[in-house]
């Protein structure tokens, strides 16, 4: 199995596990962890893509809420401290990638006149 096959197989397994988690969570777990979801069913299919992609995080949060490991007040504290750092990192990455890309560009041979290539034997 080469690297590409390994990646695709891993992604397939990941999504199948996510599908199983989505089935259990949306049919049963969501009513236990969020009172606003009780009796609300139409919106649940919208959650399937997120569960497929992030099922380990979903399982962790489900467990944390079940055992009340998440203090109520901390859940509503706005996060702004890391914002400037994230923006600076993005700026640095953009500058680096643009510089590398422009440096790697090769000169276009527009100063060379095109030459008609003859066929075999000519």
């Amino acid at each position, binding site marked *: 199995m080469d690297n590409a096959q390994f990646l695709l197989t891993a992604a397939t397994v990941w999504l199948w596990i996510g599908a199983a988690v989505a089935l259990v969570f949306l049919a049963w777990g969501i009513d236990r962890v969020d009172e606003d979801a009780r009796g609300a069913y139409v919106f649940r299919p919208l959650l399937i893509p997120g569960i497929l992609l992030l099922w380990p995080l979903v399982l962790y949060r489900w467990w944390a809420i079940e055992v009340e490991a998440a203090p109520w007040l901390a859940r509503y504290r706005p996060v702004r401290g890391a914002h400037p750092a994230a923006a600076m990192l993005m700026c640095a990455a953009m500058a680096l990638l643009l510089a590398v890309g422009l440096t790697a*560009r090769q000169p276009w041979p527009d100063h060379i006149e095109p030459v008609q290539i003859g066929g075999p034997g000519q």
Partner: protein
Amino acid sequence: MSVKYIPVQWNPNKWAYNAAMLGGVGAFLWIFLYITPEALSHERPINAQIHNARAFGACAFVMLTVILCIGPLARLDPRFLPLLYNRRHFGVMTCVVALTHFSYILGWYFAFSSQGGLYGLLIANTSYGQIAGFPFEAFGIFALLCLLVLAATSHDFWLKFLTPPVWKRLHYLVYAAYAAVIGHVSLGILQDQQNHVLTAIVIGSAALVGGLHLAAAWKDRAARAGGSGWMPVGTASEFAEGRAIITRLPSGDRVATFLLDGQLSAIANACAHQNGPLGEGRIVDCLVTCPWHGFQYDVRTGRSPAPFTETVPTYRLRANGNTVEVHSDANPPGTPTKPLPLGALT
């Protein structure tokens, strides 16, 4: 207080926002495909699939650029705030456009791969050890995965389930996605030196996004440098009955100071439900109503009306000449405070 989830909480503003957004996407694609092929170096014959792939790729890049400009613009000037509140629909649409670009690429360049298009994409170029000819597709795949995660977790449920701190950190992925898109373009289409227009657009877009973020970060830094203590909110003439002035504290939190029946009261700007902007809500019978989901609070106590139990922090106010000042240290959530009469200002 409880709000049952529904797929989308539509309101007239969201309809108008989405109509303008979809109109903009349609106009961009139409112009790209039919109006300006010469300006985009499409004078050489290319087939419809490549043309469509470039159109949707360019559209996704522009949409992501606009999305990333909205946040810092709203922090620099409150007049851009209406653009901020429905940004999640913009993000989901961007993901759909990027997926369309991806499907055109797979459907043309890798349509006949013996083990499927995805496998063909992954093995087509594996020269990760060199810059010239680097497999720029990897940047595109990473950016698309980021956009999928952001779009898939855009429903209100995720904000509450993951908690705002985790959700916000997860959505920092948009910065990584944009940087990856820049890499995807820089090491991909920009390697074609004939197209200087595109080079200028990409560099200009990156500079715009980066410059706006740095300007907003600088403004936040300046606001936070003040330390704790009494901070100016506004003068008497700046307050309007039933409305609030929002003040940013050195901690980064925001305070909403309301004028109600000629008296001033201050509460935290972030709703206890999902951090909605209380300072932009209306006051009905002494209760400010969160514009996001309708949660209500008494602005004098920071408490929801019985039988509900939500609370937000309150803040002390004082008059200093003609200026209202708020103390940066919050009272515990739900602490009653004595309102400051507007007449106390001289």
